[in-house]
């Protein structure tokens, strides 16, 4: 217990003293995971809405695949993205491996199915009657979709939170595609693994506390938007 208290104190000390390395790691974590989450919205919201509103052969299989993807193990994603980005790999010419962009890409692959799946559920829970009503009022199909997406925006905030929570906390993919390079691709989770390996448990705990704190702050902000609109 003493160790954890020491770590919490260390976290405050590192942030207050303004340890540049810790700040850089923290900002990079946020930068990468926010980029990946926003990109996953670009992919996931249209994909989830389309899946919710259309019927075609093989749809059931596709929905099952998306739902499976919501639990995609980050190390597996990391391994495949690494092989893809290797110098000898399909996308080797881009020289993206061991860069923050590669980490954004891997986290996008992790977050996109989560956002797609939860958007699908959010749009689908709107009653069928409501859709028919909008159409009866003379809305075009596109206008109806827009109304439905707006109607589902609060549950979609949950999708956003789940997506962000999934990527800010993952370590397997970031370690593999980023390489945990100091000053370049080191983020809170990979730095925690490194400091644990070095035996610097107080710093590792401090980094964990910072990670928990920023995850909480982001979720708190999103939750307050979600709950305010509800009233």
């Amino acid at each position, binding site marked *: 217990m003493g160790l954890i208290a020491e770590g919490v104190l260390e976290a405050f000390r590192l942030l207050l003293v303004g340890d540049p390395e810790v700040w850089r790691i923290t900002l990079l974590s946020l930068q990468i995971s926010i980029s990946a989450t926003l990109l996953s919205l670009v992919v996931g919201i249209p994909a989830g809405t389309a899946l919710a509103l259309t019927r075609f052969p093989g749809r059931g299989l596709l929905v099952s695949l998306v739902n499976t993807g919501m639990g995609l193990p980050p190390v597996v994603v990391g391994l495949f993205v690494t092989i893809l980005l290797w*110098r000898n790999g399909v996308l080797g010419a881009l020289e*993206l491996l061991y860069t923050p962009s590669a980490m954004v890409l891997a986290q996008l692959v992790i977050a996109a199915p989560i956002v797609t799946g939860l958007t699908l559920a959010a749009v689908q829970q709107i009653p069928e009657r409501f859709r028919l009503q909008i159409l009866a009022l003379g809305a075009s199909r596109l206008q109806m979709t827009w109304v439905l997406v707006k109607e589902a925006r609060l549950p979609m905030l949950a999708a956003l939170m789940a997506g962000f929570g999934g990527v800010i906390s993952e370590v397997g993919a970031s370690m593999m595609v980023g*390489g945990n390079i100091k000053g370049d691709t080191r983020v809170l989770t990979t730095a925690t693994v490194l400091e644990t390996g070095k035996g610097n448990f107080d710093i590792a705990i401090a980094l964990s506390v910072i990670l928990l704190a920023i995850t909480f702050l982001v979720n708190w902000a999103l939750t307050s938007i979600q709950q305010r609109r509800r009233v």
Partner: protein
Amino acid sequence: MRRILSALLLLLVMAASTAAQSSIVILSTTTSTQDSGLLDVLVPMFEKKAGMTVKTISVGTGQALALAARGEADVTLAHAPAVEKKYVEEGKMQNRRLVMYNDFVIIGPEDDPAKIRGLPRAVDALKRIAASEARFVSRGDKSGTHTLELGLWKQAGVEPKGAWYIESGQGMGQTLGIANDRRAYTITDRGTWLAFQKRINLPILVEKDRPLLNIYSVMEVNPANGPRVNGAGGKAFAKFMVSPEVQAVIKTFGVDKYGQPLFVPIAGKKDEDF
């Protein structure tokens, strides 16, 4: 929508900025080198001097060499001489040069159930551990440390298996934690053991035997291994590691923190000298 667009833009800019850097050297190395903190000193020195960016990928020795053999790295710093020589013979790696050494020690519980304390030969210590089936934690991850451990078991004529032989599959730090928790024996490099003094209670029982020397060498990756190997960058980093300037830094590295240096510089020497 504007935020989403700017995020997309950010991604593109990030991609473009990295693609523009052609002077990147990828160094594949072992976790122990990274954990010691030595590279945090040497890499910035090199970057400043050579005007190149080094990406240090620290993984187990097995993976470090495998990546290099596929042309996914430009230069490798490793500590598994037998495996390294195999790669050099196969032509995957070239110009192998010794850089430094530190040493391994056998540590274990204070009460020493296998009675190995003070034995001069590591092989005899392992024989006793196996005979008494005292718990032993192995890295089990094809790292340099694991390779050395397996070599010792082979010399001891023991095939380690059974409930007493625990394979952690993790780095040295985590493995020390497991050994401490299970009151088990293990083999560790002295540097990591020193770094963990506050957390573990396993004294050194056997040390200073020749097979326990942990020799690090630097190797250039054969540019023929892949289309994008930065041969010149790899060469420059390898040359840097054996330069008098770096050897002087290695000689005193760790003294301020542990009261003793973590490595002994040996550039210019050959395997036969040890």
